[in-house]
């Protein structure tokens, strides 16, 4: 069954249209990736699912329409978001950043904190550090942790590997797999790093200037010219 269904979703910044009738569906318990070059509309797609942009079309989560809902409502229904630039609270400690993430899930704080510290032991060591002084990799961990604090069933992560060293990328990939396998989360990532996406996701969607131009299983897409075209032009 599809946990997330996107139906002809278009997004607008003023008069400029950044997404053109994007439709895709995400099965429960899977990891899917949306790949595309700079400016393809990856962040816009995730922002739109969270209700942060002006859109037309429909988004359904767990069978219920969430189009037009307030972001707060979407978060409490069970969608967590790790955005591209993290949007952490720079002068708060790691712990307080995580606690803000629990705003809509206050009963699960103990359980979620324990799980996050198990996934990212580093965050347990750095509980009292302000995130403004953290490295990019650590911030990514706090960002994912904050999203997990809301007890989501669906996790959206915008470019999880951006700016990270290969070793940290592997760690992040491992965490995302564990979230699917151990916590039965459904995960949607966006990527410019097509290899990372192909190695992690069960299905990959190719986004080019706001339109989905191809989709498929990684093994089918790996040599697909449309994937290359999305990056290098025709």
């Amino acid at each position, binding site marked *: 069954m599809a946990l997330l269904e996107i139906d002809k979703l278009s997004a607008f910044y003023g008069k400029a249209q950044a997404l053109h009738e994007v439709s895709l569906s995400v099965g429960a318990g899977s990891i899917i990736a949306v790949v595309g070059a700079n400016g393809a509309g990856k962040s816009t797609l995730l922002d739109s699912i*969270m209700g*942060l942009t002006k859109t037309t079309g429909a988004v359904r989560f767990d069978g219920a329409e969430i189009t037009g809902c*307030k*972001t*707060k409502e979407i*978060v*409490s229904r069970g969608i967590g*978001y790790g*955005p591209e630039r*993290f*949007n*952490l*609270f*720079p*002068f*708060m400690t790691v712990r*307080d950043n995580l*606690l*803000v*993430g*629990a*705003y*809509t899930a*206050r009963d699960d704080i103990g359980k979620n904190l324990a799980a996050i510290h198990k996934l990212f032991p580093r965050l347990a060591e750095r509980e009292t550090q302000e995130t403004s002084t953290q490295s990019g990799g650590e911030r990514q961990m706090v960002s994912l942790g*904050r*999203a997990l604090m*809301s007890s989501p069933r669906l996790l959206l992560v915008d470019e999880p590997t951006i700016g990270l060293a290969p070793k940290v990328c592997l760690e992040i990939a491992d965490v995302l797999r564990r979230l699917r396998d151990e916590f039965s989360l459904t995960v949607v990532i966006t990527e410019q790093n097509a290899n990372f996406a192909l190695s992690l996701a069960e299905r990959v969607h190719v986004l080019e200037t706001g339109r989905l131009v191809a989709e498929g299983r990684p093994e089918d897409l790996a040599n697909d010219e449309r994937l290359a075209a999305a990056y290098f032009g025709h």
Partner: protein
Amino acid sequence: MLQVLIQGLLLSGLYALIAVGFTLIFSIGRVLNLAYGAYLLIGGYAYFYFTQAIGLPKFAAVLLAAVIGCALGILKFLLIVRPLRGNHVAIEISTLILAVVLQSAVVLAFGDSSKILLPIIPGVERVAGAAVPYSNLFAAVMSWVILIALWIFIRSTHTGRAMQAVSMDAKGAAISGIDADRVNMITWAISGTLGAVAGVFFASYTQLYPGMWVAPLIIAVAVVIVGGIGSIIGTLIVAHIIGFMEVLVSTYLAPELRGIFTMVLIIAILVLRPRGLFGREEL
């Protein structure tokens, strides 16, 4: 010397209370609430009315003044700030106009002569040659109690952390499930409450008159400018700098110069350190 120390401490505590309600709004909404002084005006007059005109107990009168300040804060948010969302200049101009309108309303209701508030707690203690009215001591102690309570609230409750979150990263707050409008309204409510209570103390320090919203506003603006974007700790420190300097100036130079010092300080900091002494965006 001891006299300066005591008076400095008492005045600074009050200044911190006056400034903190203004700083809260500035750090969360990034908007200068130029009607902030009007909370003090209304708070002071409400207290005067309830105690000296109606004869309610003082404690009840402070509470009622606080409730009125709270309501005023919420109304201002709903009727002016939210509709004008994002247009800071428009918000600032309308709040300034609102302050002037409220001043006229006070003149209409109470006349424009100044009024003396009966002390909240009568009596004077002499400490090292300084006369310390119990009222002022009470005002300073209450200011500290309120500030500490506010600090704990902001640090350790979900709502308080949400206020910090909105002030530091609006998108981050939104995707954490925080409704910024709600947090803003709570902040305006707290600010109005603090302003009205500060007004009761401020009026008992000086006197009650329709123009009494200007001086506290200048103090509050000075604290924000000197301290940088408002942290509560920064507010405390700067309130003490200003409070002590005023006491020093009026003791050793001339009492007439005390307000001038604050204004000169504002301009000097604006020119020398536009981001304030502790310019970081924190609550």
